[in-house]
């Protein structure tokens, strides 16, 4: 539990909520990152301009942070690149099949009390927790 950071978690969450609320109030769009990104890819491209600018905003944040002397994020990913590849494929496939990810279903859908999104969120939480349990405590244990 030494890594538990509830205050920064809550503050960051509130900012994410403001971003989702503003995108709906201003542009009438759901801030679901997998959907925003997938709309830029073939074969179903649509509304390129706002999607691209949202993604530019995502990538610009850590770059602008470096001006304020924050370091760029250095995420720790598995050394096994095959695992990274399979994980990315599953995330891409699964989010298109279900129509949303942690932001679209987990945040925006839950906030709309959509039964589909609540079911989707429960489903990905269960399989993600099971995956970590197997990787860390069955295989790794």
């Amino acid at each position, binding site marked *: 539990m030494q890594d538990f950071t509830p205050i920064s978690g809550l503050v960051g969450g509130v900012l994410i909520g403001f971003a989702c609320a503003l995108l709906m109030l*201003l542009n009438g769009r759901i801030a679901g990152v997998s959907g925003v990104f997938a709309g830029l890819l073939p074969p179903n491209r649509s509304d390129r*301009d706002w999607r691209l600018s949202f993604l*530019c905003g995502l990538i610009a944040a850590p770059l602008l942070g470096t001006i304020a002397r924050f370091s760029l994020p250095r995420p720790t990913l598995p050394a096994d690149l095959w695992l990274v590849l399979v994980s990315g494929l599953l995330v891409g496939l699964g989010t*298109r099949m279900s129509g949303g990810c942690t932001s679209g279903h987990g945040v925006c859908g839950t906030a709309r009390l959509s039964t589909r999104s609540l079911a989707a969120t429960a489903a990905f939480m269960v399989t993600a927790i099971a995956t970590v349990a197997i990787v860390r405590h069955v295989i790794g244990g």
Partner: protein
Amino acid sequence: MLRVIASFGCGLLFAIGLLISGMTDPRKILGFLDLFGAWDPTLAFVMAGAVAVTGLGFALARRRSTPILAERSVLPTQAGITARLLIGSGLFGIGWGLVGLCPGPALVNLAGLNVPVILFVAAMAAGMSGYNLWQSGFAKAKRQADASAALSEG
């Protein structure tokens, strides 16, 4: 133009939220998902804050007839809990649990130009396009089958 600036600002704010909350770090994500280990409940606080503010914003948006900068809002129209929804979410969860990246944090992390992150995003894009191509191919085959069925009936 205003819409493009607004969505850039929303993307920026979204990413700042992810960075402050630590959600761009796969270790924080896996720490939350590791219920049977040294559990880190931070992600629940991120979700609670995000869902509460988003809910308030959406309630405000519903009181307006149109969004401020657009002619209409675009909301999901699908209803009902389908096998596709549950299987898709389940597959996403497995991918999320393997590495600890979901689409938002993965894209924010692209800024660091790390090879594994670039590979992850490329694979994610391939998974998305692959599924959509498969679906459109499936829809096309179904249309052709329907058309030939209609021909043979006529």
